[in-house]
Each structure stands twice: as structure tokens, then as C-alpha cells.
């Protein structure tokens, strides 16, 4: 037990110190996330539409959280390839479950910090009031969607094991596709008909749908001063889907990763140069 905890901590320890050493880049990425989110949210302010502003703010915050979480996990193997340490991690006596758990926990911390920075920035740029929002409910939904995104991230992390260059590209293509089909800034019914079925496969679709209800978006009783939020029971359907996705995607992600690792060991793809 103690050994497992130390091994999990190893990945958080490494992530923390790498963040510290690359601090100026971390500041740049956070700044860019903040300005991007503010630029999107100000579209709603310019339209003098409180509901639109709120939709854009919720979309920007959630996408920021989920994409940082996904990206940090998905790119973890690519980072190791670039550093040249992948073989050392893979020959260490640490189970892949503990390895990916450690990476996911660090990713979660990272995305919480990043989203807090963006939220703080949005408070400065938009006349945002969260009075009346069901924030505990939002946290429950985010927690449920975290499971599904960890599963997706683990699956995507296998791509750079398959191919050092193409794999990293693939993780970004997948991330971009999620952004498009999940209706982050718009309802999914504005997507072309042939794309709409894909939105049902994205956990972000359910996360956004639930969070919009929990902050009162779409509720006619919502005003700029007070949000008319739905209770948690109103998003039971979305929560069930998210939890189910998490329960399927995490084991599936580990299975896919294991298969890819075995393939890489047969074909010699773990080698530093790929």
C-alpha cells in the first residue's frame, strides 16, 4: 500500500517539479487560456445577452477544465518520448494502473489551477454573477465527467506509443473533434445532421448540458442578477450517462494502453528514437 502511494506520488512529484522549471511557459499557457476565454465571453457581452454570455462563460470554463485534463494525460507519453525517459518509466516495477493514476491526479490538479485562473480572469472581463447557481451540483457533474475524460485521455495516451510523431498529432485531432461535436459554445442541434450523432458519444456534451441547467441557462426565470438554477435531480440522466461512460472508458483505456504497450514491445517502438 505504502509502496503504491509512493509510486503514485512519483508522477505528481515529477509533474510539480517540471511545472516549476517550465513556470514561464505555464504562465504563458494560462494567460493564453484566459485571453481566449475572455474573448469568447465578450461576444455575449457585446450582444447584451446575459444568457448568451453565461453560455459562453460556462462553455469556456468547462472546455478549459476538460481539455487541460485530457491533454495532460494524453500527452504524458509524448512528453516522455521527447525527454527520452520512456524506456526507464516502462521498465520500472510500477503497474500501468498506478502509472496512469499518478499522471491523472497531476492532470486533475493542473486543470483545477488552470480553470481557477480562467474563472478569475473572466470575473474581471464580464459582469458575471453566479448568485443562485447550483455550484455544488456543478462540482458533482465535473467529478463524474472527470472519470470519462481520464478514460479518454488514457486511450489517447496510447497513440504516441504507437507512433511518436503521428501519435501526438492524433491526440490533438481527437481533442479538436471533441470541441466541435460537444457543443461547447452552441447547442448541438446547430451541427450538420450527419455530425449530430457523434455528439452523443462525447462526455463533454452531457457535462455541458448538465452544467447549463445547474447554472440556470435556458431558464426564463434567470436574470442578470440572480440565476434560476435547477436542482441536481434535474440532471440525473446526464449524471448516469457520465458515470457509465467513466466506468466503461477507464477500463477500456487501460486495456487499449496495455495492448498498445505489448505491441510496442514486440515491434521495438518503445525505443527513444521510435
Amino acid at each position, binding site marked *: 500500500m*505504502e*509502496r*503504491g502511494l*509512493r*509510486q503514485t*506520488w*512519483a508522477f505528481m*512529484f*515529477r509533474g510539480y*517539479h*517540471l511545472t516549476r*522549471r*517550465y513556470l514561464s511557459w505555464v504562465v504563458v499557457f494560462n494567460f493564453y487560456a484566459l485571453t481566449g476565454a475572455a474573448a469568447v465571453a465578450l461576444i455575449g457581452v457585446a450582444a447584451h445577452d446575459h444568457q448568451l454570455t453565461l453560455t459562453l462563460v460556462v462553455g469556456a470554463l468547462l472546455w478549459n477544465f476538460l481539455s487541460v485534463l485530457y491533454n495532460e494525460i494524453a500527452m504524458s507519453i509524448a512528453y516522455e518520448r521527447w*525527454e*527520452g*525517459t520512456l*524506456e*526507464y*518509466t*516502462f*521498465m*520500472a*516495477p*510500477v*503497474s500501468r494502473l498506478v502509472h496512469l493514476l499518478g499522471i491523472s491526479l497531476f492532470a486533475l490538479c493542473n486543470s483545477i489551477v488552470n480553470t481557477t485562473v480562467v474563472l478569475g480572469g473572466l470575473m474581471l472581463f464580464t459582469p458575471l454573477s453566479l448568485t443562485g447557481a447550483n455550484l455544488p451540483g456543478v462540482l458533482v457533474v465535473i467529478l463524474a465527467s472527470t472519470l470519462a475524460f481520464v478514460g479518454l485521455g488514457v486511450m489517447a495516451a496510447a497513440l504516441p506509443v504507437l507512433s511518436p510523431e503521428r501519435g501526438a498529432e492524433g491526440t490533438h485531432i481527437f481533442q479538436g473533434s471533441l470541441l466541435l461535436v460537444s457543443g461547447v459554445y452552441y447547442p448541438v442541434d446547430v451541427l450538420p445532421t450527419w455530425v449530430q450523432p457523434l455528439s452523443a458519444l462525447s462526455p463533454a456534451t452531457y457535462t455541458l448540458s448538465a452544467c447549463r441547467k445547474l447554472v440556470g441557462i435556458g431558464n426564463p426565470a434567470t436574470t442578470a442578477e440572480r440565476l434560476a438554477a435547477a436542482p441536481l435531480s434535474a440532471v440525473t440522466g446526464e449524471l448516469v450517462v457520465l458515470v457509465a461512460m467513466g466506468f466503461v472508458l477507464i477500463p477500456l483505456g487501460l486495456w487499449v494502453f496495455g495492448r498498445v504497450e*505489448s505491441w510496442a*514491445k*514486440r*515491434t*521495438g517502438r*518503445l*525505443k*527513444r528514437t521510435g
Partner: protein
Amino acid sequence: MTLPAIQVCNLRKQFHRRRKRRRTDAPEAWALAGVSFEVARGDTYGLLGPNGSGKSTLIRILSTLLVADGGDVRLLGHRLPEEQARVRWLIGRVSVDAAFYKKLSTRENLLYTALLYGLDPASAERKAMHVLEQLGMEQRTFSAPLEEMSRGMQQKISIARALMINPPLLLLDEPTTGLDPKSRRDVQAFLEDLRRREGTTILLTTHDMAEAERLCARIGFLAHGRLVAEGTAEGLRRQASAATLDDAFIGLTEETAAAGDTPTGAPTDR
């Protein structure tokens, strides 16, 4: 009777190159074409061979990073790849490229490895620092990022990292390549002392004949994926009727090439 630390029997590995147009895999020459050897516990065994002879492939298989196509490998009695989880606790590896997080300091890199192996960080760090001091490194360098260090210093840290986990079996893939003569001598003296003191079994690949002669009880010459000769340095010199190990190496490995023994077909079972 004590089992050998390393038992390799008829080990075979072939890589495939992807043919883009046909989207199929084309087999390359055998990287390892039926290699067999044993290393007794506490011995240092040298594996010498020209570039591309299969040395690193062999080390990767023993490090659980590559799965062989055929043959049998046992490390300290544990079979690979079936018992790879057990084997990983028993091996330390130093590769030709010191693979570290270059932005992190020596201390941070070593603590990360200690945690990865579930060790108590404080005692693991003490051991690693002791090794570094024995290798002639100064304490003040331990908090500097590795990117600021020379290759020789990084390689010494790589050795300290491998030894921090107290492995009974050490796999060294050209650990002194690119080191200056003083650093090379420090590392060689340390390895001699380690084998004497701890009884660590060492498998060493190197291009340096003098190093092999100094450190290894037995030496194997690998060429074109085959072990073409094996024995003590003296025995190999005698076998090749050569004055030096360099001459013996060139004579015995080129003999294989001249005999057209480049293995492209499937190796026969032995």
C-alpha cells in the same frame, strides 16, 4: 547448485520495416539470430560487437522493453517475459544516452526514481549521493539542472540511479561511451569495486576492448545477431591467433561476415 544470473538460450528477434505503399510489413535481417550464453552470479560479462550487431536489442529484451520472437531468457531464475514484473525489481540499467528530465536537478531526478521504485526517498537519496561521491562528483552540483552538466557527469548520475535500487543484476549498455579518460577510469574502478563488494552481476556492452579486458571475466563477440566467439580475453586472443583483443575482435567478427553468415532467413533451432 546456484543457477546462473543470466541464462539466454537460442534468443531470436527480427524487426519489420513498414512498406508504405503496400501497407504491409517487410522483415529485416535478424537482429538476434539464436544467441545463447550464460553469466554466473557475481560475474561481469562483456558483450562486444560492431554497430548494429544486436547488443542493444539484447539489453532491451533483458530490460523487459522488448519481447523476443523466440528462445528462452531467465534472469536470476525468472523467465521473461512471463515474470517481467518480478524481474523489474532485480535489474538496473544504464544506457548509452543518459535519459533524464534535463530541466530537473540531480536530486529531483533521483528522488523521482526512488519514489517510482517505492523506496524510502531519504535513504535512497543518501545511497545515490554516496555513489556519486565515490564517482568523484561534488555535492554542490546536485541541485543544478542536468542540462547544465557534461555528458560524463550525466552518465555518472545514470549509474547512481541504477544502483540506488540495489539491483543484483546490472545491465550496462556502453556506459562509458563519450566519457573523458578520467571519468571512464572512475566508472571502471567503481564497477570493479561494486562487483567485489556487493557481488553484483554485470552485463556490459562496450566498444572499448581495454575496458572489456579490465572488467569482464568472460567476453562474447556478437556479429550479425550471432554470438561468434566466447571466452576469456586470453582465450579469444588464442582462438584468433591475435596479439591483442582488438585484433581478435576484428578477426573473429569479420570472419563471420566473410563467410556470408549474415542471417536473413529464419535461424535454425539449436
